[in-house]
């Protein structure tokens, strides 16, 4: 039941956004991940990540399709979706959190922490993510980088491939928001 709570909050979070002001949406957010090992480096990008920003509450919600990651090699894409992430069972990764001490009236770039729940592969973990928030041409832009341990999200790598996949995956993100109009 505890594992399901973040999903309920996420549903409430998104359903709440259709009618309220001070909301911003990024439909083409970019999330990249990198796995660096001595054997090989693996990189993938997802350019269609959804995020909604509510400045009245300083809250942020993110949802992305795991099948939306693009790899250099299609076989890597296949392994990622079928063997590691199991996209048929867990098609989306989500994050819902609160931006701490964000001041929407300041036009200067701000570096802030976002604290929330990150769900990947059906597992929800608390996450603290550092982000830079800028106002560029009237668009809020959030960028940042953090890392996740694949062990924490129950992602199993066959022993034969363990030297090819990093234990900690580096994740970068960039969201450019437009005002979310009804």
């Amino acid at each position, binding site marked *: 039941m505890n594992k399901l709570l973040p999903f309920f909050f996420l549903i409430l979070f998104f359903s709440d956004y259709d009618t309220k002001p001070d909301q911003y949406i990024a439909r083409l957010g970019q999330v990249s991940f990198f796995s660096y090992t001595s054997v090989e480096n693996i990189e993938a990008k997802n350019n269609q990540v*959804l995020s909604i920003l509510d400045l009245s509450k300083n809250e942020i919600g993110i949802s992305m399709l795991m099948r939306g990651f693009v790899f250099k090699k299609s076989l890597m894409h296949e392994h990622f979706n079928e063997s590691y992430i199991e996209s048929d069972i867990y098609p989306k990764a989500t994050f819902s959190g609160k931006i701490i001490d964000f001041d929407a009236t300041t036009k200067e770039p701000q570096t802030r922490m976002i604290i929330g729940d990150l769900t990947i592969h059906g597992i929800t973990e608390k996450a603290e993510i550092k982000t830079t928030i800028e106002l560029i041409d009237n668009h809020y832009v959030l960028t940042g980088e953090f890392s996740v341990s694949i062990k924490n999200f129950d992602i199993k790598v066959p022993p034969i*491939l363990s030297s090819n996949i990093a234990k900690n995956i580096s994740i970068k993100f960039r969201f450019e928001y437009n005002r979310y*109009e009804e």
Partner: protein
Amino acid sequence: MRKSVKIISLAVFIVINICIYISLNLSDIKAIDINKALTFKNTESEVLVANFMTDEKQADEIYTGKVIEITGTVKEVSFLNNRNTLILQGKDKNSGVICDMNANQIDAIHKISIGDKITVKGICKGFLKDVVMLNCIIITNN
């Protein structure tokens, strides 16, 4: 004896790593050529979005992972993050079909205007607030 075991173990280790390297880096036979791929289904962008909004699970089973052709009105052309993206009108103002275009479509995209009715072919990846399609090509621009 011990030496021969070590040599055999080392040989097996090297062969396994070569196999892994080949499988991950050289064999790429499953890459889809979207031009040649058979279209699984044709539909309108409003209908596709409505299907996902009505029953996402069922729509996933029908469309996700499949090559489909979608006809709709262009509501946005975006070059954000160095990607070439067309967004087709969906069921309402806040929904649509995001088409991430194949790199070979760059010239065709620059001829597209907002309001054009077009047909694109691509691989459906699922639904967030919009249906997401990757590796898209323009079939017709009416």
